[in-house]
């Protein structure tokens, strides 16, 4: 289960990448980049670390991580359709 931590108005949690590495998800509230989700992919194999929108990271993340991140975003910053998210 992803533990979400408040960092300013954003929420940050760890995500699992398909190649078994760990990345980070940053959930931004509406108004900041339109309530976007950014995925931080660590550097590996000579490639620099990258921060990409979740839409561009779907193939890098495990399905469980995609579900966790999008549910967390909806629970934290959505329109009340889901129960609120508990944060650490």
């Amino acid at each position, binding site marked *: 289960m992803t533990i979400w931590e408040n960092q300013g108005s954003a929420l940050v949690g760890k995500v699992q990448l398909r190649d078994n590495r760990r990345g980070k998800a940053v959930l931004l509230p509406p108004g900041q980049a339109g309530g976007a989700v950014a995925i931080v992919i660590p550097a590996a194999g000579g490639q620099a670390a990258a921060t990409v929108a979740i839409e561009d990271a*779907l193939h890098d993340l495990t399905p469980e991580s995609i*579900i966790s991140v999008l549910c967390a975003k909806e629970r934290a910053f959505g329109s009340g*359709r889901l129960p609120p998210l508990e944060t650490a």
Partner: protein
Amino acid sequence: MREGAGIWERAASTARDGLNTPEDIDQILDEIVTLPSMPGTLTHVTELLENPDYSVEEVAKAISADPAITLKTLRLVNSAYYGFRQHVASVEHAIVLLGAKVIRNLVLTATALESIQQGAEPFFRHSVASAVCLRAMANLHPLPAGATPEQAFIYGLLHDVGKMVLEEFMPEDWQMVLDAARSEKIPVFQAEQRWLGIDHAMVGARLAARWRLSGELVSAIAGHHDLAQCTQPGYRSLAAWTSLADYITSSAGFPCDYPAPVPLAEGAWEETALPVDRLPGLLEAFFEATPEIGQLIKTAEG
């Protein structure tokens, strides 16, 4: 006094020795009391509807013999989901409007709701949320084995029904399982296997088979934590979709037992054959449908 206490102790003991077989589970289920009100009305209605020349009057009479099921069936027919402009006031009217297949599914839904609402509140909410989730996904993406969205709804509703049996007939052992899952940070089904030698998926599947529910449904229940447990391998992908809905609803804030979602069954994602870029759209469809969860709970509680 629960009737199955001795049996469960024997089950746990034989399980620790690796002795529990499907026959043992059947024997365990034989020796405990089965869930109430299942499947009298449903069995009768199913038998009548299997005849292509069924009589509307006779089917209506069979449904109406059970007032709780009648009430729930009519509430479901008149819910926003079916979207009829006119109020459906009688069972006969519902049968004529919806036809045999849909009415059978409705009676099954009403019966399942009647049964599972006896369970703890988080269990009931999680079951209804899983039903709504699977139906929302099935509306967007065709499910395997030709399962309709209405059938998918039932898979979600009943996938954890075995937990209710365990909780009802062995409350102390059940509490021990929950405590162990919490303290060891393991999924409940693993704690069940460790402490009881069986898990709720096995119990639920056996129960569904005994209720003469479809092979697809029995398989979806049996395999939702372990695809290898599917009673019919051809239905593994239905179990995989059920596992996916289970994971999504827990992540979305409708967990069954405690906040940590159980992991997807091993190989479940691959078995769904779902392209990963379809996932956000399916999640959004579920989020859109969540008001139905509260409405269905109200419908069930009357």
